[in-house]
């Protein structure tokens, strides 16, 4: 067991059900280890992801987010992820401008056959978030212990 | 009644004495990005106080905070101590009359006494200040108020250059000012007279019946035209010293929540939405009608005096410069016209 004082980030992971969620499954069934810091939320398609949900995740105390969908061109709904891509680029610009570290925002693509890659992505995202430390909220006040428990439950 | 006259230095000393026993709020300049805004806040330093112009926002922030968690109202204010009473310094006539409106509604109305307001108000002493000149948008004298002195404040300050007359009207507070040098009543009287003469004539005169005829004005067809340019934001109500509408709501999840009380605004489209989705005030005109009628009809009907004090802040702050004086003038003209018609009918 690593040093218990080491910061273990909570990462809200939004995974599209057709590719990345399946990739997470594959990683599991092929026994590929990845850090347990992500709280997975399955969405039908990354195109369904309202940027508000991502802002809300930060508001609920997530230290970072990971969004993964099908590779461009592979979307189950043909072009959902292509709409999503523009949205994320703009959201990323906005969040960074507002003073959120870029390391907290992780966007990527993972197909259903990329279990290994998915494990790598999670590891990388966790490492990235670890470098910037805990998220203190938009007001810089941090989150209380009770809030933290609540978030753990909900995420 | 007691009259005192003191120099600026002496007032400063008085301030330092008072701040040991009271929280003191007064208008101070606050840096707000592009501009500086004069606003009431708790302070520690006499020299910060700006006496010479009308503050940009009213002392409503102090006696009726925008957000209160009941008992934790001024969280984060450095110079506020919950155990002490509060003195609000430099409150102008208009804002004092506005406090009267609050008192009428929250304390004097026997049907319900608002405890949190009453507690706060019982621990508040208002030190008024006499106005020396008119701001562009002021029209309190057109509504029958006296900008030189309001009777509702127990202590009143008259600033004459670097000297201050302090008039203590309420015996309760005479102790606080006992040690100060005495002021000459005749001198103060002369100052007041001179002020009155200097106070330039308002360009705005108003001749409406108060209360406004409820039914007639409710059905009048002028409201939509009046508010054609209104955006429907809540600026006028948030900066209004007499707007007291509030809302309760709970924040928190999963069984744990905090009850908050915060300002509401009748100019928001969601203000009167029913649970069914029906909205009896579904247009800007109807909402503005409520605002004007509340101030000039419903309040005088239920209590005493108008619920508009003519401070002009809604005029200054409105993003589209919707002028309440124009609205009142339109009302006056409408009543003049309609009144003629009606007497013909009878």
């Amino acid at each position, binding site marked *: 067991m690593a040093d218990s004082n080491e910061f273990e980030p909570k990462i809200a992971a939004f995974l599209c059900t057709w590719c990345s969620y399946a990739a997470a499954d594959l990683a599991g069934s092929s026994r590929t280890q990845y850090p347990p810091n992500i709280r997975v939320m399955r969405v039908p398609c990354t195109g369904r992801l309202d*940027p*508000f949900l991502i*802002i*809300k995740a930060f*508001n609920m105390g997530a230290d970072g987010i990971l969004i993964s969908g099908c590779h461009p061109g592979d979307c189950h709904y043909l*072009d959902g992820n292509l*709409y999503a*891509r*523009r*949205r*994320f*680029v*703009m959201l990323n*610009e*906005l*969040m*960074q*401008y*507002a*003073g*959120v570290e*870029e390391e907290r*925002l992780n*966007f*990527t693509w993972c197909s259903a056959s990329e279990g290994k890659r998915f494990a790598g992505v999670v590891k*990388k995202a966790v490492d990235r978030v670890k470098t910037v430390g805990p998220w203190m909220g*938009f*007001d*810089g*006040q941090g989150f209380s212990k009770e809030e933290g428990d609540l978030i753990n439950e909900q995420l | 009644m007691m009259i005192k006259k003191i120099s600026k230095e002496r007032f400063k000393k008085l301030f330092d004495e008072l701040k040991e026993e009271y929280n003191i709020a007064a208008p101070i300049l606050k840096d*707000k*990005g*592009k*501009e500086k805004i004069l606003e009431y806040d708790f302070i520690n330093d006499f020299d910060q106080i700006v006496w010479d112009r009308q503050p940009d926002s009213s002392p409503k922030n102090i006696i009726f905070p*925008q*957000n209160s968690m009941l008992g934790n109202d001024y969280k984060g204010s450095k110079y506020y101590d919950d155990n002490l009473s509060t003195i609000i310094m430099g409150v102008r006539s208009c804002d004092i009359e506005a406090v009267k409106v609050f008192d009428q509604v929250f304390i004097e109305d026997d049907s319900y006494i608002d405890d949190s307001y009453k507690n706060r108000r019982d621990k508040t002493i208002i030190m008024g200040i006499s106005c020396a000149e008119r701001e*562009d948008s002021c029209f309190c004298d057109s509504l029958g108020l006296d900008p030189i002195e309001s009777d509702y404040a127990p202590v009143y300050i008259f600033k004459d250059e670097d000297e201050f007359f302090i008039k203590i009207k309420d015996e309760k507070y005479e102790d606080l000012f006992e040690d100060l040098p005495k002021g000459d009543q005749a001198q103060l009287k002369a100052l007041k007279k001179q002020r009155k003469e200097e106070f330039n004539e308002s360009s*705005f005169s108003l001749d409406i019946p108060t209360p406004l005829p409820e039914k007639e004005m409710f059905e009048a067809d002028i409201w939509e035209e009046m508010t*054609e340019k209104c*955006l*429907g*934001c*809540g*600026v006028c109500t*948030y*900066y209004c010293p007499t707007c007291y509408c509030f*809302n309760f*709501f709970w*924040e928190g999840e999963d069984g744990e929540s905090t009850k*908050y009380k*915060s300002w509401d605004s009748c100019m*928001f489209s969601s203000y009167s939405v029913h649970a069914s989705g029906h909205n009896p005030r579904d247009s800007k005109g109807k909402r503005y009608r409520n605002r004007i009628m509340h101030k000039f009809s419903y309040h005088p009907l239920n209590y005493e005096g108008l619920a508009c004090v003519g401070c002009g802040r809604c005029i200054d702050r409105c*993003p*589209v*410069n*919707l*002028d309440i*004086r*124009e609205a009142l*003038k339109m009302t006056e003209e409408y009543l003049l016209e309609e009144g003629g018609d009606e007497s013909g009918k009878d």
Partner: protein
Amino acid sequence: MSNYDSISQEISEIAKKLLKESKVDKVIGFGLGRFTKEITPIFIKKAEDADRLIFNKNCEMSLTKYLLNYKGEKVAIVAKPCDSRAINAYLSEDLIKREDLVIIGINGCPGIEGNTACEECNIRNAVICDYSVGQEMSEEEIQAEIEGFEDEIDKMNQAERLAYFQNEFERCTRCYACREACYVCNCEQCFTDSNKPKWLGESVKLNDNFTYHLMRGIHMAGRCVNCGACEMACPEGIDVRAFAAKMCSAAEEIFDYKSGMDPEQKTLLSEYKVDDSEKGFME
């Protein structure tokens, strides 16, 4: 640089003609208040009142949003270049009909006093109009106007930016003047008024204020025309335009997209290209 008096006169004459010939029911423009002598939106219904219409450096409001109140009526509107872009956006979203609308566009807009958006504005001529007033500004003149503009916030580091916005939003009273003044904000129900899902709390706390502006910011992506009406409307002098302005510059930089340039144009986020940028994505 155009002359305000001559622009005002031109506007009045066009309005008078339109009203006299009953081509429109109403002309929306700028005029003076009855008591304050400050600029306020006015709605002219009779030809003889048309002389009240003026234009000067204090005409800070965006009039475009009023068009939504007069669906089905014939109206004329005085449009600054930024307003003309907003009108284009409304046309592209099918919110108003072109045939009901007469646009009196202002060319060579010299900018509005106190509006920081004008310092970076490079669209100084009306992009859509039926009548144009003022003198068209050439590309060189426009470049001269905006020369030396730099986004101060962009130069800050991450922590400074966060602190800057915290300091700004601290004093937000959530009166929603920015929302109501904005032409983009015409949703039937704003996310702030939504109970389910409840995106943000009703109390005026820094965290909720910040979230409100952030959410409003992302809604501005590809729609904001950077007119600065929000900033002019804010009674607390908060830099409410910053996020929207960033969305404008990012859209231009990354997707070469400028909103409201053409009535047929789709909004940024309602279309895509297969080879779109993946700026900011993980490897």
